[in-house]
């Protein structure tokens, strides 16, 4: 089994951190083999950024994400940037206020609207959206129990624990809404040009 996960968005949203926490949860709290990689641009915040995790039940031979099985898209540009990499059968979780246009995502890919940013706000701090995304991911993927992801957040994200755990709980309990495609939207499947990182 090999699974590829990508958190994509804008620098400053804590995507690399989210990927690192997820890798810890999967690799140390659970017992998957994991590799976590990342891509970010020179700016501290504002540029394209993503945090990737590859997991498997045996040693991972190829450490980079080629076609994410689950793409978490936290900003509109990231949807455009990574649409070409997702292939039919994959699932895309998009932020329901940061993203408005999902037409570039190929047919055969399941799209879900998830309230990452709003849950961050609800927990008391918008930048906790990445922790909310971890909660959503854990329950959505079914790969991790709440206790496992909570442990990873506590160990690797020692910031404001109260807000982080509130955001995580809200995320874990949230149920993303499946997107219903309009007629003609992304009807033709575009063969993806591979873009590794």
């Amino acid at each position, binding site marked *: 089994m090999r699974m590829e996960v990508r958190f994509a968005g804008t620098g400053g949203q804590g995507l690399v951190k989210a990927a*690192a926490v997820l890798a810890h949860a999967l690799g140390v709290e659970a017992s998957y083999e994991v590799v976590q990689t990342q891509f970010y641009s020179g700016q501290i915040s504002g540029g394209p950024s993503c945090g990737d995790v590859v997991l498997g039940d045996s040693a991972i031979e190829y450490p980079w994400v080629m076609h994410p099985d689950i793409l978490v898209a936290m900003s509109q540009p990231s949807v455009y940037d990574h649409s070409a990499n997702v292939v039919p059968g994959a699932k895309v979780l998009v932020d329901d206020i940061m993203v408005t246009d999902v037409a570039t995502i190929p047919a055969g890919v399941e799209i879900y609207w998830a309230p990452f940013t709003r849950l961050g706000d609800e927990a008391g701090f918008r930048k906790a959206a990445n922790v909310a995304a971890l909660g959503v991911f854990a329950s959505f993927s079914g790969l991790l129990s709440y206790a496992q992801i909570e442990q990873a957040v506590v160990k690797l994200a*020692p910031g404001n624990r109260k807000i982080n755990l509130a955001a995580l709980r809200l995320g874990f309990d949230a149920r993303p809404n499946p997107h219903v495609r309009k007629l003609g939207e992304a009807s033709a499947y575009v063969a993806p040009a591979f873009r590794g990182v």
Partner: protein
Amino acid sequence: MSTVIATQAVAKPNPMANLDELVEQYGRVPAEHFRYCPGCGLGMAQSALMRAFQRLQIDMSQVAGAGGSGCYSIMGHYLNMGVLHGGHGRGAAMATGMKLANPHLTVVNLQGDGDSLSIGGNHTIHAARRNIDVTVVMFNNFGYGDTGGQYGATTPKGSFTETSPYGMPEEPFDACKLMIGAGATFVARSTVYHAVHLTKVLAEAIAWKGFSFVEVMQHCHVLWGKRNGMPKATDMLNYYRDNSVFSTPNLKREEQEGKFVLGVLHKQARPEFTEEYAKIRKLAAARAGGQGLSPLNTGGAV
């Protein structure tokens, strides 16, 4: 003259101390010959440095030296200490590494004016800023001697060198002011003419806890002197005698004009870097709970 210098309570120097004994204990006699030009100020400066070690009764096996490139750099080989004779100008950085790695060492960094003020200026001012317990001895011979007498950052304005055949158009650095500005806690200047005074300030600098800087006016009659009407070593020694003034609290500005101001020019204690770092080690070890050597989470540093 010597009554006006800031002094510490140390034994009076004996200029007549047996030189052979001094060299045997604090120096190293080369197999072939000393590679200083006849009459060079470096020999005088070295003897003052050895006497300074003698006055402080320093165990030479615990002395480490760092040096770069220049006429002076051979001096490290003639002193009975461990020496790293490395890249041009990197002496202060090498000395920083030695002292921090082993704070028990007495670290002396010999430098030329090219080392301290030009190629290694950055290392020297940062060592001063850190206030690491290193003694920088800067030999100022008004230019680059090892390469044949080109002008440098200390060449007096208007003087003639290999690369300033029409007279030096630039202003020189005042090395001591630069070091005071950079945060050196002990800054002094002396000349090889004032050998007793030089010994005294060198001893005081080595004993000083923190970064100390001594500018040694060390003549080069062969390259600089010859082109500027002072072809003999004695001409240059007289030049230092006639153009120096000792620093006193009441020294007027006009009295300093065009003169080398000698003495301890600045002295202000500040916490020393390796001692401060020892506190950090303690703090870090306490936070690691004695588990430093086991693979440890650094607290999510990234």
